C-alpha cells in the first residue's frame, strides 16, 4: 500500500492537430522535470524526496545518463538515487504501488506528449495493488536501434491481449479510469464513461490518478499491449495540473548542418548553476554572478563564492529573432535577455512555448528547464523563457515578485 500525497501533470503547449507534441527544446527529461516540480510545489516545502523513479519508453540517453539532469532540474540533491525504468503505464502503477514514502515517481511520454509525477508520502489516499498480468503481445516493437516495427492487427491485441489479461485479473468491480488505451477501448472496460487521458504511455497512468478528481475513488487500470496492472485508490488525491491551451507547432525551417560541438569540460564546469538555476554569490559582498566567476563582478574579491538559487521569473530587457538559416538549428528562433525579479542578474536565453518573434521588450514570464541544444549527440540542458501569456501566471508572478 502507498499513499498518494501529491500528483502533478504537465502538457506541452504544442499540438500537431491531433495530439500534444513535445517542442524542439523538450524531451522526456524536461517534461519529467516540469511534472515533478508541479507535484513538489503542491506538496509544499516539507515534502521529502528520498528516491526518484523515472518511467518512460522515451529516455533521451540509453548510455550517458538522464538521472543527473533530472535531479538538477527538479532541484533535488545529487545524493538521491534515481531508477531509470523503461516501461509503460502498468510499470508506472507497479512503481507507485511498491514505493516507500519519500518516493517521487515520474513519467514522461513523447507521443502523445505529456508527463506526470506522483509523490508517495505519509498523507493522501491509499493506493493498493489489485492484480498484475505480464504477457507478451508485441504489436509495436522498438529495439535498441530505435526503429519502430508494427504488427498491424488491432483486433488481435484487443481480443487476445487486453481482454484476456483483464479477465485474468478477476476484478470484483470495473475500473473508473483506464490508462494506456484509446477512449473507445477504455469505454468498453468501464461501467461509466471514464475520463479521457492526455497520453497512452507511462505518463498516462499518472494522468489516470489525476483523473480520479473527476471519476471518483475506485479501480485504476493500466494497460500496455497484453500487460495490465490494476490498483485501487480509496480517495481523491491532491492534483496540480499545468495544461496550457494547445497551439499548433510553429512552422520552422530545418537547416542542414553539422551537429554543434560540445566541450564536456565546459559542460561539467557549468552543470550545477546551469541546470539547477543558481548563481555564484560572492563570499565577501554577496553580489550574484551568472555564470559564477572567479573574480567578483562588484567588489573584485577572489576569495570564493557559493551557489544560491535564482528567481525563476523576470522581464524581457531586450530580444531578437533569428530568421537567417543557421546550420543545424531550426529557424526562426528568439533570444532574449531577461532581467530577473528582485536580483541584479540578467540572463540570455531562448524563448520557449510561443511562436518566434512574438515576445516583446517588457514582457514577463518564467525561466523553465529545457533542452537548449543537442551537441555532439548530448542533450545540453539549461533554462528558457516561457512568456507569462502561455501559463496565464502573470498575475501570480507579479504578486510573488512583490512579496
Amino acid at each position, binding site marked *: 500500500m502507498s499513499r498518494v500525497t501529491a500528483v502533478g501533470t504537465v502538457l506541452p503547449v504544442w499540438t500537431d492537430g491531433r495530439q500534444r507534441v513535445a517542442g524542439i527544446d523538450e524531451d522526456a527529461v524536461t517534461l519529467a522535470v516540469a511534472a515533478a516540480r508541479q507535484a513538489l510545489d503542491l506538496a509544499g516545502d516539507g515534502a521529502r524526496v528520498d528516491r526518484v523513479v523515472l518511467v518512460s519508453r522515451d529516455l533521451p540517453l540509453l548510455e550517458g545518463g538522464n538521472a543527473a539532469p533530472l535531479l538538477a532540474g527538479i532541484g533535488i540533491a545529487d545524493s538521491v538515487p534515481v531508477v531509470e525504468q523503461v516501461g509503460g503505464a502498468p510499470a508506472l502503477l507497479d512503481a507507485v504501488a511498491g514505493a516507500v514514502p519519500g518516493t517521487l515517481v515520474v513519467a514522461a511520454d513523447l507521443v502523445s506528449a505529456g508527463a506526470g509525477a506522483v509523490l508517495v508520502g505519509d498523507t493522501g489516499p491509499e493506493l493498493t495493488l489489485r492484480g498484475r498480468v505480464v504477457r507478451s503481445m508485441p504489436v509495436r516493437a522498438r529495439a535498441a536501434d530505435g526503429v519502430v516495427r508494427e504488427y498491424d492487427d488491432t483486433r488481435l491485441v484487443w481480443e487476445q491481449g487486453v481482454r484476456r489479461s483483464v479477465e485474468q485479473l478477476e476484478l470484483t468491480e470495473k475500473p473508473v479510469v483506464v490508462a494506456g488505451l484509446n477512449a473507445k477501448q477504455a469505454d468498453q472496460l468501464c461501467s461509466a464513461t471514464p475520463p479521457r487521458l492526455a497520453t497512452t504511455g507511462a505518463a498516462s497512468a499518472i494522468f489516470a490518478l489525476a483523473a480520479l478528481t473527476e471519476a471518483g475513488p475506485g479501480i485504476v487500470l493500466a494497460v500496455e499491449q497484453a500487460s495490465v496492472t490494476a490498483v485501487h485508490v480509496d480517495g481523491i488525491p491532491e492534483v496540480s495540473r499545468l495544461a496550457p491551451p494547445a497551439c499548433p507547432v510553429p512552422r520552422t525551417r530545418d537547416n542542414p548542418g553539422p551537429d554543434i560541438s560540445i566541450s564536456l569540460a565546459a559542460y561539467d564546469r557549468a552543470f550545477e548553476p546551469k541546470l539547477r538555476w543558481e548563481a555564484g554569490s560572492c563570499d565577501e559582498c554577496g553580489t550574484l554572478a551568472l555564470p559564477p566567476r572567479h573574480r567578483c563582478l562588484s567588489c573584485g574579491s577572489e576569495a570564493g563564492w557559493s551557489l544560491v538559487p535564482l528567481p525563476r521569473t523576470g522581464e524581457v530587457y*531586450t530580444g531578437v*529573432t533569428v530568421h537567417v538559416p543557421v546550420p543545424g538549428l531550426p529557424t526562426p528562433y528568439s533570444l532574449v*535577455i531577461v532581467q530577473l525579479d528582485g536580483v541584479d542578474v540578467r540572463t540570455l536565453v531562448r524563448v520557449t512555448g510561443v511562436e518566434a518573434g512574438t515576445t516583446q521588450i517588457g514582457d514577463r514570464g518564467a525561466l523553465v528547464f529545457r533542452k*537548449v541544444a543537442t551537441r555532439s549527440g548530448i542533450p545540453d540542458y539549461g533554462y528558457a523563457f516561457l512568456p507569462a501569456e502561455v501559463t496565464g501566471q502573470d498575475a501570480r508572478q507579479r504578486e510573488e515578485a512583490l512579496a
Partner: protein
Amino acid sequence: MRRVAVVGAGMTPFREHFGLGIKDLVPMAVSEMAAHVDKGLDRADIQAAWFGELSTTDGFPSGILADTCGLLDIPVTRVENACATGNDAVRNATYAVASGAVDVALVVGADKVRESSARSTFWEWAGMTRDTAWDYPLGLVAPANFALHVARYLHESPATREHMAMVAVKNHRHALPNPKAQLRFEITIEQVLAAPTVVEPFGLYDCTPQSDGAAALLLVGEEVVDRYTDRPVWVRGVGLGLDRVMHQHKRDMTSFPPTVKAARAAYAMAGIGPNDIDVAEVHDCFSGVEMISYEDLGFAERFGAYKLLENGETTVGGRLPVNPSGGLKAKGHPPGATGVAQCVELFEQLRGEAANQVDKARIGLAHNIGGPTAVSAVTVLGIGKD
C-alpha cells in the same frame, strides 16, 4: 614620445576573392601600399611588422606575412582583437615607432571570410567568440549580438528602422565611386525595409556582406618622414576600450562603452574633441550600430543620432561625412583588414586623393567595435602634426 606619420597606404579590393588565398591578398596589399609611397620604398627599410588577422587561414599569420612579402628578416607580430583588430594593429605599430624602437613599421590587416561556406561562418566565428557552455549553444550568431543592442536602442530612442535604412542607403551611395568597394549599387529605403529579415530588427540590407581582402599602411617616425613623402598624414591619437564580454553583464545596451573609452583615449592623445573631426570611418557592420556609434563617439547627443541622418549631416557634403568609402556596409568587412582599410581611406581623404572626396578634410577618425561588442579601437589621423 615622438610623432608618427603614415606615408603609404594600399589595399586590395574587398570582394568574395574565391580565386585568391590569404597568401595572395597580403602581398598584393603590401605591394600596392609600396607603390603608393611618394618617394618610393626600399623594403629593406622596414624594421618590424604588425599583422591584424582575426581568423587563421592557411596557417600561422605572422609567418605568412613574413614569407609572402619577402620580409623574413624582421620581427612580425600578429594582432587579434576581434573586429577591432585592424585599428589595434595600427595602435601597436604606432607605439613601436613613437617609442623610437622602430623607425619604419609595416601594418597589414587581412581576413579570408569566404574561405568557409556562407552559412558555416556563423558557427565557426561563434565558436571563437562565445562562452562555450552558456552562450554558444543558444545560436547567438554574429548579427544577433548586435541586434540585442539595437533592439533595445530602438525601444529607448526615437530612432526607427527607417533611420537604420537611411544609414544603409547613404553608405551604398558612398560606395558607388569607390573601386575597392564590394557593393557598388544604390538602394532605396523601401528596398531596405522590404528585404528578407536576417535577425530582427536587421534586414539583409542592414548587414555587412561577407568579404575577403587585405590592407597595408607604412608608419614612420617623424625624423625619417622626408625620405618617403612631403605630404604625410600624422597619427594624432589611438585608443582601445573594453567591456564585459557577456551581454548579460552589460548594464546599458543602448551604448557601447568600449567605443566611449577608446574615443576618449584617442581624443585626449590628439588634444581634440569630436567637433574637430572632418570625416569618419565608423564601424557599420549593421546599420543600427553606426547610429549608436555616432553617440558613443560624441558626434551626436544621446538618442540624437537619428537627427544627423534626417538632416543629411553624415552624408558626403554634410557637416560630418561618415563612411565616405561605403563603410563596412558597402565597402565590405574582412575583419582584420577593416580597421587598416579605414585608415587607408582616411589617408587618401586627408591628402585629397579619395574616390569620394570630402572637402577640406584635415582630421579623420576610424572606429571599430566587436568582440562581441566588448572591444573598440579608435584612430585619429590628421594632416597637421598638432
